[in-house]
């Protein structure tokens, strides 16, 4: 038997079926090692008070039509380059501008856009995956003015737009800036 594996009696000790006194002398040291492993289990209570109001708020804003599927919480990392295109504006002073947002994220399962124009709602504006190369796009018509935004990958990773200017968001991350 490999010395990397615990002796079966020590496993029974770990299971709580034996006490250390039940072990033969030559296994006592291994038994102590096993018990010290168990002693390192973190039983610290975890407190998440914000979950209550967040759950109730999420339920309150829910529409009848349910979002299909759970957020697939795969933690792919959004890759590289994002291209932000600003199409030519009409001659008259516009009040809205159409903007296309693009993010290259081949490993993502879901990409959305959150910003000042949609109340930072990570579920409001989904990007659509085009083709098989991992390019995600969305086209929005936004009012003239200043906007800040970020992409949300797989429902939890906030990614600023690599192709756009960025400012400190006050929370240790960066927001992308769109000035129309």
């Amino acid at each position, binding site marked *: 038997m490999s010395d*990397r*594996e*615990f002796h079966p009696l020590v*496993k029974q000790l*770990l*299971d709580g079926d034996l006490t250390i006194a039940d072990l033969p002398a030559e296994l006592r040291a291994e038994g102590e*090692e*096993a018990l*010290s*492993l*168990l*002693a*390192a*289990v*973190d*039983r*610290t*209570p*975890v*407190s*998440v008070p*914000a*979950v*209550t109001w*967040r*759950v*109730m708020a*999420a*339920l309150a804003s829910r529409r009848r039509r*349910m979002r299909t599927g*759970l*957020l*697939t*919480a*795969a*933690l792919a990392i959004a890759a590289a380059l994002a291209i932000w295109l600003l199409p030519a504006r009409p001659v008259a002073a516009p009040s809205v501008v159409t903007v296309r947002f693009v993010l290259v994220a081949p490993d993502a399962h879901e990409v959305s856009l959150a910003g000042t124009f949609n109340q930072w709602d990570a579920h409001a504006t989904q990007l659509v995956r085009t083709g098989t190369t991992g390019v995600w796009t969305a086209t929005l018509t936004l009012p003239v003015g200043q906007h800040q935004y970020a992409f949300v990958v797989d*429902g*939890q990773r906030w990614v600023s737009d690599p192709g756009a200017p960025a400012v400190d968001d006050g929370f240790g991350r960066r927001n992308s800036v769109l000035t129309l």
Partner: protein
Amino acid sequence: MRPGAEPKDGEIVRSVLAGERERYALLVERYRDRYARYAARMLGSADAAEDAVQDAFVRAFDQLAQCKEPDNFVGWFFLILRNRCFAERRRSRSVAPLEAADSVAAADRTDGGAESAERRRALQLALLELTPDQREVFVLKHMDGLSYEQIATQLSTSVASLKMRMHRAYDRLREQLRDHK
């Protein structure tokens, strides 16, 4: 607290299904911390745990009509949370595992302070190296203190297969902790 003053889980579920949505908050309050702890051990991060618990409660609400035994809401909810945790791939190692922030000083700890915090962190990292099944049985038995029989009922499996998973977990943990000393 007066005995009988707290409504039972089944009562709350039935009233929510009858239209009193606000009462769902009672269930969330009741179980969020306990399950955050399970999720934290399974996912290795407090933030991920908070997200998982929140998502699970929302999903449970959406499917509440399918809860066959309202009196066992917590067992049914646990499976939803469990699915949510299993679906999440393990975060990269660069995410710091849980610190025992306001640590409860356990009476059976013999070392103090920094050393035992280091060992807790080492074990949490080693736990993340296990398969989710192995990690789960270890967490349920040795953190939540459930018996094999209780775990078997909850997960609809046999005690024998749980022990097999657990014993493999013990060996892998030993290996991980030795390799990283």
